[in-house]
């Protein structure tokens, strides 16, 4: 058994929208999608990284009260959550592929620090850096 981090949570404004984004536009896979009443536990993962999942959840009940949920939704929408980093083999190729699928890029690929990086956001406002792996 390998010990380590298995799931990291990511607040999104709508689980269906987030699922479509991460699966159809980024090429992730659904790992778990189960419901218990109104609660939906949804996780996705990168196809090359089966030991790690991103848990996509909407801030709200039963975990959070209405005011806290509203505040968190505002923070996510304002881009206030910490950025995530996606490592890719070829940043320019990934950028072209993702842009064709309608991903909202906030930064075109730039050559710097000996690699290439770009930036994009998910529909909720979560910011991603996409960095080409050094060879």
């Amino acid at each position, binding site marked *: 058994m390998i010990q380590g981090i298995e799931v990291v949570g990511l607040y999104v404004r709508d689980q269906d929208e987030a699922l479509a984004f991460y699966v159809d536009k980024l090429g992730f896979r659904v790992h778990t999608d189960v419901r218990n009443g109104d609660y939906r536990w949804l996780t996705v993962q990168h196809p090359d990284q089966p030991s790690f999942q991103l848990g996509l959840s909407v801030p709200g009940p039963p975990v959070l009260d209405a005011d806290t949920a509203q505040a968190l*939704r*505002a923070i996510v*929408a*304002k*881009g206030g959550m910490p950025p995530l980093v996606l490592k890719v083999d070829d940043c320019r190729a990934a950028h072209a592929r993702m842009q064709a699928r309608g991903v909202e890029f*906030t*930064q*075109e690929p730039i050559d710097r620090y000996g690699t290439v990086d770009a930036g994009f*956001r998910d*529909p909720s406002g979560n910011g991603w850096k996409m960095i080409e792996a050094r060879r």
Partner: protein
Amino acid sequence: MSDLPLPPQDPELLRRLLRAKDRMDAASHEAWPVQRLAAVSDVSEAHFARSFKQAFGTPPHRYLLTRRIERATALLRETELPITEIAFETGWESLGTFGRTFRDITGESPSALRARARAAVQEPGRVPACVLSAAHRPDLTIAVSEKRRREADAINESHDKEIP
């Protein structure tokens, strides 16, 4: 304007306002009149500036200026580009406006900042690292206990001398 607390903003609106902020971040050297920003956010021109300020705590115009100054500061520190070129590259149409705004925001002129940044980096750089570490070493060539004893002796000696 009253000081009444503003009602919370709709997250959908905030997400669209973020798009305007992202676009300024990506191209702060470009001109960003309110109509252009409002169109990016799909908000009326009349509401844009107020909504942006409520969301991000600073009016859009000032946000753009700070991003330009931030970029100019980096270019002054990290490159050899002439100040005129930095002014145009970061979006100013005149060197005078650039210098004035730069001073207003940072408290010093672009050339003063460049000179200070260089001095801060280069002065230690000229001294070889081994010499530098020796120079910064605390002046402690004997054991602490020995140093204390000598100091105590010195006090006693001087005390003794004062007594005939």
